[in-house]
């Protein structure tokens, strides 16, 4: 069994590990590669930081929030149709 992975494969595994648990030889080989490869460690660190940055804040631009006017239109539509007769 070849435990040596290239950076391309390790990058895939590092990404997949953010969504599912790596197991078995893929996990072992990825650990070994990360131990030896600074660019792959940097990639893993950067995407972890990207996730951390996204989770720690929230977008606040005009394209990120449903406007008060749109919210009012939803309520108006409900009032127009009747609460139980939509």
């Amino acid at each position, binding site marked *: 069994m070849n435990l040596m992975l*290239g*950076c*391309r*494969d390790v*990058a*895939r*595994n*590092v*990404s*997949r*590990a*953010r*969504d*599912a*648990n*790596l*197991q078995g030889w893929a*996990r072992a080989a*990825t*650990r070994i590669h*990360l*131990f030896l490869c*600074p*660019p792959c*460690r*940097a*990639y*893993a*660190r*950067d*995407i*972890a*930081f*990207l*996730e*951390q*940055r*996204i*989770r720690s*804040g929230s*977008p*606040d*631009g*005009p*394209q*990120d*929030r*449903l*406007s008060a*006017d*749109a*919210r009012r*239109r*939803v*309520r108006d*539509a*409900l009032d127009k149709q009747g*609460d*139980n007769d*939509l």
Partner: protein
Amino acid sequence: MPPSGDRSPGAAKYPLRRLPLDATTPNAGHAPQGATPLVAPRTRFLRGPQRSTRPLQTGGRLPYTVSMGEEWKAGERRAAVERWLAAHGDALYRYAFLRLRDPQSAEDVVQETFLGALRSTRPPDGRASEKTWLFAILKHKLADHARTCRHSPLDQCIEPDIREDGADANIEDIVFRDDGRWREATTWGDPLRQSAAQAFWRHLGDCLQVLPAAQAEVFVLRELEGLSLDDLCQITGVSATNAYVLLHRARLALRRCLTKAGFGPEDRS
């Protein structure tokens, strides 16, 4: 499929597919039984999904097999609208805007989503499944909008940006050499020196807009809106395997894009 005998219009129109759950299916950040989490400092990146989500209020059942509730009670719709607007309005709008690139069209589609949800006679159980349910309805409304746009001469009917996802296969070829090594060794360096929050979100928004549609969609649902992989697959219709690939390519592309945009670049060999 909804439980047999469920004939409500809402349930029939917006069916929730049953997805198999086995010991290895990622679900809401909980490690499968028997899995040993990696804790070595050098390999902390392989710790597995760290997200915590609200526990499903379905008595332990998956949201896809949740028993549909009863008819709306008097006043329930109004309370539901207020709850949905407060909890999910912005998230639904962000997703719609990502797909349509036009604020007015995005607002219209979100409005249709809420009205479509109100027409359902079977509100979903549990707050966690409510978000997934609303996103699934939004997905249908976006498809309806696309069909309308194809047959409409109206200027304000903005065609969704349909990009060929064949191009996304290039990102791995772009960042990796033929021998599988990185073409450029870069890193974002010390996170504490990163640019201000507004600049980050502006850069991220710009980079998401140039991503292939499928990649942007799954990344937004997974990372920005915090949906589990199962919910994401249900909403988008992609398999888990394809979702992994799309998320991987999105992360590669966004890292490259943010680096080029000047977001904390630092070359290290």
